[in-house]
């Protein structure tokens, strides 16, 4: 096991990619804080699954866009487990619309959750990680943050922002033993992508060299790699995990 004794905080871990990340980290020996926004029951189910794996876990409700809640969540994590080794910024939402039609609150909601949320969680964990002189921060961006995508101006701006934030955080914290990397997933089968229509899905599939949609575990495996010592000489990078969609 690669993460024995490590403590991980995964935002948006009640379902989808975040859930698989939480389970993947636990399988490698980490104890996990399962953050969620509204899905209390599903978060508790993830906690139960992790405990079945023989690891410890707690669920914490917190809107990542709210700075007081984020501060409390990180405090509760450190109070409970005594340290914090791995932060995975995974929580995210979509509010798709053409720029012409996009409402200001659609823009704000997505920027607040997907970009400001990453900043707030990162800021809150730097203190315990700097004291430990070690830490891993892994940000879930998106391949569209690299390529752009019509109908997702808010989401793309946020996900591109996360890539820039990743590089800056990596540079600021490099001398303190903390590495910061991002993953840019392509099309992964979750509730987020379920709601897209079939025609769009066909179009997307045609652009994927590996000719299939990704599974949440495809992302979780790379998170485990970035959280472990195997990636210790990497920082500030964005890994495309997209079946070859953007090269």
């Amino acid at each position: 096991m690669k993460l024995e004794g490590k403590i991980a905080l995964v935002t948006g871990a009640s379902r989808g990619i975040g859930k698989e990340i939480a389970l993947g980290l636990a399988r490698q020996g980490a104890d996990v804080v399962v953050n969620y926004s509204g899905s209390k029951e599903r978060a508790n189910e993830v906690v139960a699954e992790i405990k079945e794996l023989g690891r410890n876990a707690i669920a914490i409700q917190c809107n990542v866009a709210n700075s007081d809640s984020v501060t409390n969540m990180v405090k509760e994590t450190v109070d409970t487990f005594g340290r914090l080794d791995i932060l995975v910024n995974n929580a995210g939402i979509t509010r798709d619309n053409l720029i012409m039609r996009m409402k200001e609150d659609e823009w704000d909601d997505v920027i607040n959750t997907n970009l400001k949320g990453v900043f707030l969680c990162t800021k809150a964990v730097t203190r315990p990680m700097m004291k430990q002189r070690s830490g891993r921060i892994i940000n879930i961006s998106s391949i569209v943050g690299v390529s752009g995508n019509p109908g997702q101006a808010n989401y793309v701006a946020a996900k591109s922002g996360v890539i820039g934030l990743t590089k800056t955080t990596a540079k600021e914290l490099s001398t303190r033993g903390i590495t910061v990397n991002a993953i840019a997933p392509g099309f992964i089968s979750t509730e987020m992508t379920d709601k897209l229509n079939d025609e769009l899905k066909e179009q997307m599939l045609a652009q994927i060299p590996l000719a299939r949609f990704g599974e949440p575990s495809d992302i979780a495996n790379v998170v485990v790699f970035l959280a472990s010592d195997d990636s210790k000489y990497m920082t500030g990078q964005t890994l495309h995990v997209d079946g070859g969609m953007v090269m």
Partner: protein
Amino acid sequence: MAEVLERVTKIIVDRLGVEESEVKLEASFKDDLGADSLDVVELVMELEDEFDMEISDDDAEKISTVGDAVNYIKAKQ
């Protein structure tokens, strides 16, 4: 009160690897004691632990010399 200066000095010596004799009240962390911005942030974190107090980001930004730190802690105690 001298005790505050002593404890602050010890932390600075440990953290920044400077000689005790260099830690004068008017010494600037960055200009005289070779600290970078991140060192100062860490120093403030250690002072918070040592003196069991919270120093807000706004207050922390005003602490740039040894004397600033000592006066701030004395005022808060």
